[in-house]
């Protein structure tokens, strides 16, 4: 029982970076833009988020406050992802470039920028970019009071996570409400399904595509920062981050473009990533066990393509550009 509880907690903890990546990409894809650059944006977000927290502490010294550092890290990670997504939008929406290749270019660019910044900070600070333990606590410890966390079972299961878990869940809930219950959300979905119809109805297709992609990219990039600051222990670790963004893109398909399914989908994949630690099987070597999330992703991709249900389809215009003149 205790083992299962630990696994669930670890799954939610490790799945949170994926949750941000996925929810952000859901918003992007709802506008009909297939941004494959999530991996790159998460790298940029990770490097800038870490940098923001580190240089903030360096600037103000011991007076550094945890909440401010968290807010700055979120802000800079968001801006990094938004900037990457803005390049993507400009190239694909305004300059009509191919979305697939542009997304791959953003991945190459973003992973390069992330590693470049991570390495540059390391060299400039002579060795080690890490925040102090008191700041780390603001990123990694639960925001709830001690007595709630000490409740048996429930305390661990509900109140023991870092702040980003709750923020991520909140973002997913808001996103579900926005897409399903608001006028702007409806118009956004119209743009993704049929931009020509949306255009004829007087919806500004270009504006929706830009906004959804830029905000979505920003949210995805926060996931990279969350990975670096929590899972990786607040030091730059590009090897650990590698693959997260791509799993997030796959999760969008897995959760069928709905933010609510991303909630448990990300936890499921977070669990698959650490299952080898919690449920070691003697007949599967650790290194082979570690590829489980990728194998499951492949199985999911195939399963989704086999079950072609009407309501489970991607936005109709996903991946194709819209030119009013070429209707």
């Amino acid at each position, binding site marked *: 029982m205790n083992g299962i509880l630990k696994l669930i907690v670890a799954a939610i903890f490790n799945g949170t970076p994926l949750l941000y990546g996925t929810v952000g990409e859901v918003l992007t894809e709802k506008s009909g833009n297939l941004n494959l650059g999530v991996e790159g944006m998460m790298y940029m977000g990770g490097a800038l988020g870490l940098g923001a927290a580190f240089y903030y502490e360096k600037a103000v010294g011991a007076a550094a406050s945890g909440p401010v550092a968290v807010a700055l890290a979120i802000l800079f990670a968001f801006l990094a992802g938004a900037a990457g997504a803005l390049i993507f939008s400009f190239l694909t929406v305004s300059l*009509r470039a191919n979305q697939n290749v542009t997304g791959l270019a953003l991945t*190459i*660019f973003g992973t390069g920028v992330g590693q470049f910044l991570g390495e540059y900070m390391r060299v400039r600070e002579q060795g080690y970019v890490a925040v102090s333990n008191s700041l780390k606590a603001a990123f990694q410890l639960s925001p709830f009071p001690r007595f709630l966390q000490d409740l048996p079972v429930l305390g661990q299961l509900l109140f023991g996570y870092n702040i980003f878990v709750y923020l991520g869940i909140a973002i997913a809930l808001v996103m579900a409400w926005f897409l399903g219950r608001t006028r702007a959300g409806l118009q956004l979905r119209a743009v993704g399904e049929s931009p020509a119809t949306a255009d004829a109805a007087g919806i500004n297709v270009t504006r929706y595509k830009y906004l959804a992609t830029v905000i979505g990219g920003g949210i995805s990039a926060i996931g990279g920062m969350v990975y670096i600051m929590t899972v990786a222990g607040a030091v730059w670790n590009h090897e650990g981050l590698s693959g997260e963004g791509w799993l997030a893109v796959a999760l969008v398909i897995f959760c069928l473009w709905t933010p609510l399914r991303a909630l448990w989908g990300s936890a499921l994949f977070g669990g698959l990533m650490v299952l080898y630690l919690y449920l070691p099987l003697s007949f599967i070597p650790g290194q082979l066990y570690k590829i489980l999330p*990728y194998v499951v992703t492949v199985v999911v991709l195939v399963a989704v393509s086999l079950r072609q249900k009407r309501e489970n389809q991607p936005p109709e215009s996903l991946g194709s550009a819209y030119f009013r003149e070429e209707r």
Partner: protein
Amino acid sequence: MTGKKTPLIRLAKRDAMPSWQRWAIRLAAIVLALLVGGVVMAAVISPDNGNFFRRFIGAYATVLDGALGKKTAIRQTVKNFIPLLGTALAIAPCFKMRFWNIGAEGQITAGAVCATYFALFWADKLPQVPLLLIMAAAGALGGGLWALVPAFFKARWGTNETLFTLMMNYIVIGFVKWLQGGPWEKQPKGSQQIAQFAENACLPKVAGVYCGWIVVLVLMVVMFLYMKYTKQGYEIAVVGESERTARYAGMNVGKIVMRTMFLSGAIAGIVGFLLVSGANNTLYDGVADGAGFTAITVAWLSQLNPFGMAGISAMLAVLEKGSDTLQTRMAVPVAISDVITGVLLFFMLGCEFFIRYKVIFRGREEKEGTK
């Protein structure tokens, strides 16, 4: 059409541009991207190296010197060049078909694993030439089959190939990690490494570099002929332009997709064979070392033209080797080469727009009309 009602900027499709003009625009994009890259490098180099302009020039001078300054440096640059060109040639037919194979990294690794099997367990039974041929064939088969898996599901059920091919990378690389620390680990155990190949499993050197460079140059010519002059090459182009047209013309799209992907994976597998047998003389999990991704850049920057790919590969190989030197001499992180590669791609993708469309500002047209 007067005054305020016309939008500030309008777009119109261009008639076909002469080819020299197209390449001039693309060249301008490359130059612009290199300028941006130079500004980034100059910004992070310490001011001890002179003013901004001198740092800018100094950065590229260091890159060129580091990549081409010495004989050993040139050899290393050529070693970087081989997998780039080989892999770009591998993914070119897929991209032409609009099949987004981003799993070249894994196909290289799969080919490398198959070739390594023969290098480790058959080297004492076979002389060099047949052994190398068998290794090459095994590499091609391994890479091809690894690529065929996603192609089969794409052709049969339309499974998303981008993510499928990518996930296959992580799977095979994880498999190599297991081989390294498990059944193929060299004696004594504990090193997490696979033994160096016996001499007869290693490719001979020609002009100081293993003969892989000859292989990829031959492949380049073959690929050019295949894409341009064969029926299969034509079918690839038609499927890429419009799947419906291909179907209407009676082509079996699924078959073409699978055949092309097998071919693509096979070439990547041969690159894997070249890497283990020529460059590293052993297998490790990072054998592909990002070539699968950089090759996407190469293929796209050269507009899928095999000879263009050789040029772009050479440029990126120089950049890669040079940025190593830049790191040791001027403390610029080596990832700068990825940043510049990304910027290059952005500019190249953007410039296609100006080849296809012309931008008309408000007021311009009246003037042109009165001429």
